[in-house]
């Protein structure tokens, strides 16, 4: 409502109020006097307005709806009004319920009640004596719990003075009740509650139920490990993995021995009559070295106890054809063939216990100087861990011992080094250092480790160029480990590279290889490198012929 008061600048402005009776008596009288003297013809205007009002009242009489329609409307309105019945109570209730804070308050109340009840259950002792204790008079002297291992009810109404606790085996002794806490209202109740809690604690200990206080106060609580160890025989929990605790060397030895046995069986299975060995693909026909004749006389030093002695065996059926080397004869391809050979050997043998016929390289006559353990600068670099397949290959391969040291020591050393390699596997190293290490290992006769180092170097820098010496060492190690195909591929790659400075070395290697095969009755391949180079193209087609020749045996 507007509270602004009209302040007419002229008396004529009060005309409307004068017409509709909105002036006070004094003002109305004054306006009447103004009408008599007004020059704006207010009087005529007042008369005209009065006429219009009279006409409007006649022209616009009150109109009412029809009776039927009005009755229906009234009924509907009354019904709607009755729906709202409830007065202040319902609106108030609705207002409260629909308030946004109501739901939050209700939720908090519910949560609080739940927490309170749960907390009460946790605090309440489990024994039924708690009900008895509730009835105990608050003034009763709280007799401390007789500290025995067995559960005892709380003394209900015992006004006797407190007796000292006779603790037997419980660490927490209930202190004697203070006489000053007796018999007076809240003090007695507090002491009573305290004794009740202590009794509950004692009972829990007797029942082997861990209490909160125990774990909070005890410092000699068993650790999780101890608990596991105690429960180890019967618990269903998974036992800790012993691998971290076991020595890597012992584990490796076990694995190797197992793999050796598997390899022996596998090699035996591939040769129906026991001949073992790998086929050699030589294009000059010298590759007809029968694996049977070669491996028939050779026994794999499958175990650590075998001093690498060659055990001759009768020639037997040739082994199954092995996948030939791919056309790209190279250092890396040789490695691939080597791995493939090892895998093929493993998969081909199915538990045959015949001896493997891989010739330990040390037993072959070769003019190679005794490898002296060169002062190898222990490379601070570490190599990456070899893949599991290669690790198994290294483990399964016969121990290539070229020194006079006992095989056991070398094997242990190799295992140690392998374990060292494994341990240092995560650290990266440069390819060059790896190759140097491989070369040094090859010179020292540790062909497995050397091969691993060379493989790691190639993995780190696959596109790097390898010098001829490294390639030669690699081929040598392959040969000593019995990977003739891979060794041949490596030598062929050297020849293709036209490394003139190592031509003699290559020739020597070829001769050595031929001697090996000749010794075991295999057809002698061409001795000269020149002939070998000519034979190289033929080598690519040799696998098929060799397979046929192998199958002839």
């Amino acid at each position, binding site marked *: 409502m507007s509270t*602004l008061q009209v302040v007419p600048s002229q008396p004529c402005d009060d005309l409307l109020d004068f017409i509709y009776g909105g002036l006070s008596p004094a003002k109305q009288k004054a306006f009447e006097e103004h009408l008599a003297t007004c020059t704006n013809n207010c009087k005529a205007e007042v008369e005209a307005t009065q006429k219009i009002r009279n006409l409007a009242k006649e*022209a*616009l009489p009150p109109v009412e*709806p029809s009776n039927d329609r009005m009755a229906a*409307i009234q009924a509907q309105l009354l019904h*709607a009004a009755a729906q*709202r019945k409830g007065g202040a109570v319902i609106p108030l209730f609705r207002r409260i319920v629909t308030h946004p804070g109501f739901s939050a308050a209700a939720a908090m109340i519910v949560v609080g009640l739940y927490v309170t009840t749960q907390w009460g259950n946790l605090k309440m002792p489990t024994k039924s004596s708690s009900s008895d204790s509730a009835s105990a008079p608050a003034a009763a002297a709280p007799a401390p719990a007789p500290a025995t291992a067995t559960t005892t009810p709380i003394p209900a109404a015992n006004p006797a003075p407190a007796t000292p606790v006779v603790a037997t085996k419980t660490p927490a002794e209930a202190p004697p009740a203070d006489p000053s806490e007796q018999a007076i209202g809240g003090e007695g109740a507090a002491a009573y509650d305290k004794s009740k809690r202590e009794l509950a604690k004692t009972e829990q200990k007797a029942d082997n139920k861990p209490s909160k206080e125990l774990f909070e106060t005890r410092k000699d609580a068993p650790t999780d490990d101890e608990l596991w160890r105690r429960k180890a025989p019967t618990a269903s929990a998974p036992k800790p993995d012993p691998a971290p605790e076991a020595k890597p060397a012992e584990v490796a030895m076990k694995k190797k021995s197992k793999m050796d046995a598997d390899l022996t069986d596998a090699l035996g299975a591939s040769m129906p009559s026991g001949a073992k060995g790998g086929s050699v693909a030589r294009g000059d026909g010298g590759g007809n070295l029968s694996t049977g004749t070669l491996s028939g006389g050779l026994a794999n030093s499958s175990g650590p106890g075998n001093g690498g002695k060659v055990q001759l065996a009768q020639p037997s059926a040739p082994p199954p054809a092995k996948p030939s080397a791919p056309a790209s004869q190279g250092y890396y391809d040789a490695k691939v063939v080597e791995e493939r050979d090892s895998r093929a050997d493993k998969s081909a043998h199915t538990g045959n216990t015949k001896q493997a016929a891989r010739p330990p390289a040390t037993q072959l006559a070769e003019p190679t100087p005794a490898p002296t353990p060169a002062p190898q600068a222990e490379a601070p670099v570490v190599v990456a861990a070899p893949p599991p397949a290669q690790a198994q290959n290294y483990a399964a391969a016969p121990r290539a011992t070229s020194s006079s040291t006992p095989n056991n020591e070398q094997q242990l050393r190799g295992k140690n080094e392998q374990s060292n390699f494994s341990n240092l596997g995560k650290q990266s190293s440069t390819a060059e250092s790896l190759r140097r290490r491989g070369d040094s290992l090859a010179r020292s006769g540790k062909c497995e480790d050397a091969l691993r180092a060379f493989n790691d170097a190639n993995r780190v820098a696959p596109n790097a160029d390898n010098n001829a010496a490294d390639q030669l060492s690699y081929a040598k190690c392959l040969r000593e480990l019995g990977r003739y195909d891979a060794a041949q591929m490596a030598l062929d790659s050297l020849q293709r590279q036209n490394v003139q400075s190592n031509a003699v070395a290559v020739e020597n290697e070829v001769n050595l290889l031929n001697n090996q095969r000749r010794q075991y009755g295999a057809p002698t391949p061409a001795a000269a490198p020149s002939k070998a180079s000519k034979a190289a193209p033929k080598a690519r087609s040799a696998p098929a012929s060799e397979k046929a020749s192998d199958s002839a045996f």
Partner: protein
Amino acid sequence: MRDDSDESLMFRYKRGEVRAFEVLMVRHRGPIFNFIFRYTRDRASAEDLMQETFLRLINAADRYEKSAKFTTFLYTIARNLCVDASRRGKHRQATSLDAPVHGSEDQVPLVERIADGQKQSEGRVLDQELGERLKKAIEELPDEQREIFLLREVSDLQFNEIADIVGISENTVKSRMRYALEKLRQSLEEYRDLARVAP
């Protein structure tokens, strides 16, 4: 209860007394309907809007406050409904008695065709003509002037109440009323002599 003020009845209904609402409804249904009818110039629309007005009053009962006058509260609802209806065009032009009837040969206005049972004196005829003329003039007023005129002349509300209902100042209400009266006076100029003569 019939002697209680509108405000007290409204509060009683707010507390849950349906009978109080009934008293209020009977008391104000006529003026409300009359106002709505004069505003919309259509009986059917007026009935619907009247019902809607009271329904809204029921729903708004919880929000009614003692400071507000009941008539102001009620007419505010009614006026808003009328304005909405006017904007939606629900109300239709009332059949003009002066407009020629389509299809008739002589094009005689409807008002002349309606038979009046009583003997029409000349004065009454003039009054009727003036009345019709006035009604037409009122219909031709702008909405904002017409509602002020109707609220003042038909519903007999004070200017301050009209100001609260419409939501404007009292001076504005008076100003619009003055303009409305001026226009009505001009439209009746040709009947000035009759207006002077008429009682």
